[in-house]
């Protein structure tokens, strides 16, 4: 019994220690962000690996998500003779929910895991301690540019996801199923509000980008410097970021759309 309690207490302490380390780590990374203004080149190369390389998976999934939404919603709406509402349904579900959330999940799987593996391997091969020896702060040189790149990429990826998804819904709805072209766009415009829907979606994607990138770089930086440790850190990144995104999405949705 006492052993069990002891291990429980130890596990609890470890969790709090980890959360505390993650918080301090975030503060140090944020403190390192201003110095990046002098070295934009570092950020650009990270934007390439975090943002540009995620673009393909984002576009392809967005197109498919949009087309599936178009097909499914059409089948339901046509029963009520309301197939002209296809535009608002597709646009609202993409802009408010699916765009930011699915983009963030894909981002965690595509870019987050790569960030963790890269930083974790740098740690395992002692490149990070080598930098410290040369009086280069690895947090500023390695982690901060990646963090900033994730923070910039995520809202852009989510916006691309929503836009491409709406186009996918348009192809299926108007192109294949014969919904009226004008009604599709005009109904969409009259029911989607820029501040209420689109800006809130952008805010969501900024929050998700922040959290997912934070988890990814911290897991890499904090990984046990062995092959097994890096692989576990990579798994943790995907699992924790997905959970964090989904939980935060509920909280943000409740705050933004729940009680007006």
């Amino acid at each position, binding site marked *: 019994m006492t052993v069990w309690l002891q291990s429980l207490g130890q596990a609890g302490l470890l969790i709090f220690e980890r959360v505390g380390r993650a918080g301090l780590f975030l503060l140090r990374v944020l403190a390192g962000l201003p110095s990046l203004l002098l070295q934009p080149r570092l950020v650009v190369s990270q*934007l390439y690996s975090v943002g540009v390389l995620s673009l393909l998976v984002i576009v392809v999934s967005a197109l498919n998500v949009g087309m599936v939404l178009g097909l499914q919603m059409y089948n339901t709406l046509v029963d009520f003779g309301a197939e002209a509402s296809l535009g608002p349904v597709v646009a609202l579900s993409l802009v408010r929910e699916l765009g930011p959330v699915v983009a963030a999940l894909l981002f965690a799987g595509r870019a987050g895991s790569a960030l963790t593996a890269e930083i974790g391997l740098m740690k395992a091969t002692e490149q990070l301690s080598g930098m410290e020896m040369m009086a280069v702060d690895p947090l500023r040189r390695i982690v901060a540019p990646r963090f900033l790149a994730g923070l910039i990429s995520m809202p852009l990826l989510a916006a691309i996801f929503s*836009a491409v998804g709406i186009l996918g819904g348009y192809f299926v709805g108007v192109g294949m199923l014969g919904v009226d072209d004008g009604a599709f766009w005009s109904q969409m415009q009259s029911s989607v509000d820029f501040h209420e829907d689109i800006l809130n979606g952008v805010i969501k994607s900024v929050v998700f980008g922040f959290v997912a990138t934070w988890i990814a770089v911290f897991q890499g930086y904090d990984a046990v410097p062995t092959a097994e440790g890096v692989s576990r850190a990579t798994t943790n990144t995907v699992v924790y970021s997905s959970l964090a995104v989904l939980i935060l999405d509920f909280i943000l949705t409740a705050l933004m759309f729940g009680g007006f």
Partner: protein
Amino acid sequence: MESKTVQVAVGVFIAAGLAALFMLAMKVSNLSTFSTQQGYELTASFDNVGGLKVRAPVTMAGVRIGRVTSITFDQKTYEAVVKLEIDPKFNQIPDDSSASILTSGLLGEQYVGLQPGAEDKYFQPGGEVKYTQSALILERLVGQFLFNKAEGGGAKK
């Protein structure tokens, strides 16, 4: 050379992201139909607003000319006070126009319809719509209909 392709790709990526945002703003949302300049405000008091919601359209002859910005309850008159924001383009609405709450289609959302009056004077910003007609409450109509039917049926026998 390779860093140049990277830079171009990043530039294209950021431009695509901003273009997507721009498309969402202009093509998907109502930002383009409603200019950012503020319209002028009118108030109208209704006995019952039914299911009217904030942001519902305000129309005249079926054309959208503004939207509902707030719905509050006045404790003194026991009426609902609805604030309407009218597009500044439409500044020649007679000030004896009447407002009524209508439903688009059988199941559609409710909106405010303005019927033009005959006055030469126009609504000024902050003006009040004096003549209003409440929303039709379906339950009340059905109840009234049944009541009349029952009464009529009783008299015949």
